[in-house]
């Protein structure tokens, strides 16, 4: 069984971003970039399935400028077998990514596609769902457990107030939630080996996909600063303040 995993290059989760002074976006120059943490979970899950003997090949896909190769090398250092980069300088929005993935799906015919539930930069949480719709495939989103059974897969989903288990027929789309697994540390020998694994480069044009942005960012703002707290002398004052100042009671 072949598994396709989608990995996105994002600002590292440890790095604090700041909004550009003209509110057009966030400063990204010289920032450390890493694989989207939810995508790391996706790669890890694919490797687990391969180690368990359920999968035979893992193909990692990323999209964006040439530097996204680094993200793909990380995926291969974790254990993906080969990689595809769809190279473009155009800002890619979820719909464009889903369309590109759909085009790759048609070429690669994987039985399972695993994606992070969302990227930590734009927090869209759309790509997996859009891909399922475009490809007309069943989807198991927010997965906290994945179990293959025969020609299907059981996906336990994290939903409001509990867990839901759905059974999907393969091929299927899965998006990962935080509790699905803990990604492994990459080892130095595996990074070395990853340098020699095949990485194929394509373009949106070669896949026949229009990636033009559909959404326009009007303004990016920092969240308002939290106001400092104040000490109250007694319950009476607290109630009075909650009523008159905070207006919550």
């Amino acid at each position, binding site marked *: 069984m072949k598994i396709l995993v989608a990995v996105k290059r994002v600002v590292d989760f440890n790095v604090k971003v700041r909004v550009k002074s003209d509110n057009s976006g966030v400063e990204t120059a010289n920032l450390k970039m890493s694989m989207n943490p939810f995508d790391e979970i996706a790669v890890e899950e694919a490797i687990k399935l391969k180690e368990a003997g359920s999968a035979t090949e893992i193909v990692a896909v990323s999209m964006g400028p040439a530097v996204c190769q680094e993200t793909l090398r990380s995926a291969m250092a974790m254990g993906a077998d080969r990689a595809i980069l769809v190279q473009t300088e155009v800002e890619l929005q979820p719909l464009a990514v889903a369309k590109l993935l759909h085009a790759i799906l048609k070429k690669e015919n994987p039985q399972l596609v695993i994606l992070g539930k969302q990227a930590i930069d734009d927090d869209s949480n759309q790509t997996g769902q859009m891909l399922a719709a475009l490809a007309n495939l069943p989807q198991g989103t927010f997965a906290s457990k994945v179990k293959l059974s025969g020609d299907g897969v059981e996906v336990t989903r994290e939903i409001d107030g509990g867990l839901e288990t759905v059974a999907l027929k393969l091929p299927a789309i899965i998006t990962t939630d935080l509790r699905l697994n803990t990604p492994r540390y990459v080892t130095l020998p595996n990074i*070395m080996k990853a340098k020699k694994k095949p990485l194929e480069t394509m373009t949106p044009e070669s896949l026949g996909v229009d990636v033009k942005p559909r959404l326009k960012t009007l303004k990016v703002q920092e969240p308002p600063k939290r106001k400092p707290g104040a000490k109250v002398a007694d319950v009476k004052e607290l109630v009075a303040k909650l009523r008159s100042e905070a207006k919550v009671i």
Partner: protein
Amino acid sequence: MTREAMEFDVVIVGGGPAGLSAAIRLKQIASEAERDISVCLIEKGSEIGAHIISGAVMDPRALTELLPSWKEDGAPLKIPVTEDRFLFLSEKGSFRVPNFLLPPVFQNHGNYVVSLSNVCRWLGQQAEALGVEVYAGFAGQEVLYDENGAVKGVATSDMGVGKDGKPTEAYQPGVELLAKYTLFAEGCRGHLGRQLETRFKLHDGTEPQVYGIGIKELWEIAPEKHRPGLVMHTAGWPLPSDTYGGSFLYHFENNLVAIGLVVGLGYSNPYLSPFEEFQRYKKHPEIRQFLEGGRRVGYGARAITAGGLQALPKLVFPGGGLVGDDAGFLNAARIKGSHAAIKSGMLAAEAVAQALAQGRRRDQLEAYPKGFQTSWLREELYRARNFKPWMSGNLWFGSFMFGIDQMLLRGKAPWTLHLKPDHTKLKKASECEPISYPKPDGVLTFDRLSSVFLSNTNHEENQPSHLTLKDPTVPIRVNLDLYAAPETRYCPAAVYEIVRDAAGKNPRLQINAQNCVHCKTCDIKDPTQNIVWVAPQGGEGPVYVNM
């Protein structure tokens, strides 16, 4: 699980200017000679540059020697110094030293205001393009010795070891990186370099190394106040005149200003807090005028070497050598070390390449110290050698004497002064006045935790603390009782805290290792040298951006 081993011609520990330059030089020589030299460089930061913090004004001399076409190749040295200002500060006032009175070491014409972390990112790319195997995210944890006692390489740290010292599910053993020669380029107070100094007695016959702690912030200031290339240094307030130190304020690109304070770690009052000194320094009228209306975007701290030539250890031992500030090449008088680091890396690389060409392995690289002796770097450090010792006494007398030393004698004075280790200089708390520092205002001055937040530092919490204590009773019995817990003040990252029970009794030292910015100050200043800094898992610690 056993460790895998890999062999290279050369292994370099540390991806700063010294290590990267050594790697680049080795590959250059190999390609000129049409030979292959395999070079592996490891870096504990999550990427090259992540742990690099410096002022910085960079003298391009060594870089030009290493990579003559750095300008065309896009090196991030873009802001030439346009103006030098040197001020002596008092609490409210200032006195600007006329430029003609400034010794040449304080003049920066021809130098560049840079982010050294960005310069290193660029050097890392150059190194990789030349075929150096660069592995960031791997800390050198252990020096490996061969049967003759020569250094044969290093082992990287195990990943996924739990707080209890036992492997977790994520456990991955480290790897052994073996080499004919190993160069240590960990920067100031490298934890492996320290072990090598002890084992091979590298400091025998030299002065002890002395240090400073540099605390830096990056500010984005109002465009109308920004003067790219303006370089300002101060001495005096807020530091007492018996404490060595000074500040820098550099106008960098994109309305960014790098601002910092260096405090000599030979200070005597255990109540002194370099962090708080830095915070209140920003309130001086000469400084706040630039910062008001701006916002702080970065924070970090790092110990620097300040001992200069007389504190330089023996540079080589069987199987390798120390380069950059792992040895201590920083020129404290010029407050510059990156050019020295690059040059020392090049000199070591040339010695290694020569040895490899002769078919040698794991012996003494005598050509490295020899090359240094005849280099411009040695000449430069020789002239500056009396700066730190003069400044360790009294600022005013020291400035006067160093002035004579530099202006009249051009650094060729017939005297060379001595140094004492920093940790021995702390006085008992009972002999000192507590210092009360103002509360942070949240605009110009801040507390430690909101500062550490901006260093982007992180550590997996489930791992053994990388700040180790030789004797767990010392922090209370000695540090708290005699010195009023100085580690809670000199640590710029709020790693050390004395916590007490509900009744305010039973004090104990809490070590918040996940806050650590890898500055190494505790390893240096702890009065009984009870705190030993070791490397945590690779890929952790600060992630400096534009620092």
